[in-house]
């Protein structure tokens, strides 16, 4: 967690260092032309960099805590910058831990994940608007340590002992297509949501050993997964 916070602060510092004083063309309030609409908050910004967003996911943290009764914990943070009023390069960081039991055994694992990608603002007609309708892609990876205990063996005759695996580590990689929106509430505060379609690339174990049951940032292991985030954030 400390490393995650340090990386985050570095990223924010880099964004501020690269910030330019925007060349703004302030629309005169008395202009009546159809091209320029005289609303005070609308500033047509021609600079490359417009803003940095820092968002905290609320949905997954609450949903997993309630659904799994605390057995699964998921925390996600997103940092994105707004470029040319249209592009949102994004980095997402997170941490998750999970415990679960099923007919075949018990699982415990924890680790961190990172997603990199970019979104595009679909509001072509009003690109200067502080709101955004976003579509994007991500490439993500998670690294975790996990263990499987009491693993059932299909051996009804010899009745050998259940297997235990501990100290296992694994890195998984997946891709995402995301869609969502970002809405300004008041001042610099924003809220938004994402729907994610996740496709897992790393589906087999190199030595046919046990695979982790839960992947931080991806969810329960499967070839494909859906995800949902609801963010609250601030625009710098």
């Amino acid at each position, binding site marked *: 967690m400390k490393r995650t916070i340090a990386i985050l602060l570095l990223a924010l510092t880099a964004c501020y260092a690269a910030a330019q004083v925007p060349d703004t063309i302030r629309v005169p309030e008395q202009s009546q032309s159809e091209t320029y609409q005289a609303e005070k908050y609308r500033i047509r910004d021609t600079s490359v960099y417009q803003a940095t967003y820092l968002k905290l996911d609320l949905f997954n943290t609450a949903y997993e805590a309630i659904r799994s009764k605390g057995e699964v914990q998921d925390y996600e943070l997103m940092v994105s910058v707004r470029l040319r009023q249209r592009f949102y390069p994004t980095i997402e960081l997170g941490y998750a831990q999970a415990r679960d039991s099923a007919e*075949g055994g018990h699982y415990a694992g924890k680790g961190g994940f990172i997603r990199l990608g970019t979104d595009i603002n679909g509001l072509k007609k009003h690109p200067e608007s502080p709101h955004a309708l976003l579509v994007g892609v991500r490439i993500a990876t998670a690294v975790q340590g996990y263990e499987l205990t009491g*693993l059932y063996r299909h051996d009804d005759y010899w009745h050998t002992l259940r297997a235990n695996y501990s100290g296992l580590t694994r890195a998984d990689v997946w891709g995402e297509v995301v869609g969502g929106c970002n809405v300004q509430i008041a001042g610099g505060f924003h809220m938004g949501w994402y729907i994610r379609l996740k496709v897992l690339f790393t589906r087999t174990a190199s030595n046919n050993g046990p695979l982790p049951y839960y992947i931080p940032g991806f969810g329960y292991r499967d070839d494909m997964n859906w995800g949902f985030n609801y963010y609250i954030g601030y625009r710098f």
Partner: protein
Amino acid sequence: MRTIRYILPVLTAVLATACTVDKQCRTTFDVRMQAVFRADSLTADSTYATYAIWDSITVQGMGSDSVLYDNRKGITTLQLPLRPDTTVTAYRLTYHGRTDTLYITHNNDIQYISLACGEVIYHTIEGFRARGTWIDSIAMMDSTVQATGKDNIRLIAHEP
């Protein structure tokens, strides 16, 4: 934006109910070595007739108290589980009152299925031998032992 406000609660409900994990194993994994039988028996006119059916067979794994086949009649195939914790499995086979010991040398390939199903062990037969009186020879048919239903070895008996 109004449309999004209406869509959001519906989407949340759909996604929340879609995120269920099946914790029950819905597939059976029965990995057994299949042994078929062939006996050449001398007939009254001094010719050999070939039989492929056990008319009376008892099988027990060495190291286990359970009997796999107890004086079973009319079967053509034996389903024999190999030990997952060693590389040699031995069985006592009693046929027509005569008991032979069959030794199978094999490897064990552990395959993890899922948290619900646990793991299954597949095998590859590396060798075999028999000690006794009624098993004349053993022939390899398929060295891979998985839940496929394929015959793996043939026990050939030479009946006096």
